[in-house]
């Protein structure tokens, strides 16, 4: 563009755009200023354009609140299906040799180990609860099975002056047996869970962490 070129309003506004983008050259700038000097309407337009650009840039990018990400992470459906889905080498048809077009494999050994930890904690908790209940039950049984005169504390009628009948004793014995049966079932279940989930977790068929392709895809990223 010639510095002395006379431009019309449409051309002037094009140059304003270039100026806003920082792409105007010296000749364009001279032509624009020359036009603006004689054109009040373009001058007003340019002033407004600059003001709006500054205002928009002051609005600026917004920062995503941390709470959004935290909430997002709690909503991720990390299911068994999701866990196994991408560990299959044929899951997306990619061989794992390309890098630019590689996709991320889901989910992760981290997710698996996290799930195992949750199961382990649950099993240990169950086992502890069963142990406490068992201890209480044994104590109760010892107290109930001792001869009447030798029972500790308030069970001794001679001490407390309470008259314990034979039917009361039979009822207590029945309840103690029921409690033992219940505790036995809980203990068995806790032991089974502990053995299955913690001590010897089953190797997932077809989507274990050592499946071929998984490592490849992990390494791609």
């Amino acid at each position, binding site marked *: 563009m010639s510095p002395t070129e006379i431009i019309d309003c449409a051309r002037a506004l094009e140059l304003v755009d270039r100026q806003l983008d920082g792409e105007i050259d010296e000749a364009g700038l001279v032509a624009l200023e020359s036009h603006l000097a004689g054109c009040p309407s373009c001058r007003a337009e340019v002033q*407004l354009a600059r003001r709006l650009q500054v205002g928009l840039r002051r609005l600026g990018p917004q920062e995503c609140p941390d709470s959004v990400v935290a909430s*997002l992470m709690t909503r991720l459906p990390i299911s068994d299906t999701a866990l196994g889905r991408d560990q299959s080498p044929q899951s997306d048809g990619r061989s794992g040799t390309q890098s630019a077009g590689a996709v991320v494999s889901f989910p992760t050994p981290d997710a698996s180990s996290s799930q195992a930890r949750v199961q382990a904690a649950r099993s240990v908790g169950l086992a502890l609860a069963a142990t406490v209940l068992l201890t209480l039950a044994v104590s109760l049984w010892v107290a109930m099975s001792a001869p009447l005169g030798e029972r500790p504390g308030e069970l001794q009628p001679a001490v407390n002056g309470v008259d314990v009948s034979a039917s009361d004793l039979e009822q207590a014995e029945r309840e103690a047996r029921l409690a033992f049966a219940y505790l036995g079932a809980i203990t068995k279940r806790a032991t089974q869970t502990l053995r299955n989930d913690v001590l010897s977790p089953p190797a997932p068929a077809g989507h274990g962490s050592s499946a071929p392709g998984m490592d490849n895809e992990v390494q791609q990223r």
Partner: protein
Amino acid sequence: MLEQYEEVVAQHKDLVFSFAYYYLGNRAEAEDVTQDVFLKLWSHWDSVPTHAAASWLNRVTRNTSFDLLRRRKTKNRYVVDTEASELSEVAPDHLPDPHDHAEGAEFARQLRYCVESLPEPYRSAMILREIQELTYREVSELLDQPVNTIKTQVHRGRKLLRERFLEVNACVAN
């Protein structure tokens, strides 16, 4: 990989949130959209190449925001907008005293309203280019369109924005 997913989230969360915020003009809705978009990324993780994650996210953010707008069907938000307090968070550094602060907040609110009222494709182009200050090339990659097309959209968007701004000011003055 969960870690890789988290990296992608960390890298793009501001862009997604910011775009939704200016597209919708509402912080709470922008937060919802941001979560929805990244949940969709999780469920489509297999089919989204890393090099295309940004443009994929932007496309989904626009679509999700647009769907939300259609459901909302709320017009004339400038009149009913009660988020004035948010504006003070936008650029406190540029608003040094109470008087300027009030003027700056009003100006910012008008600008946001004008941007929200722009039709597509000008709104997306203006948000990315003028507010997010991305280069034309970056905008072109995000919107998956040629650079010259984006330049035309921004040029037209600026002109529309000026017209809207003058209209809003005329309404406020009356």
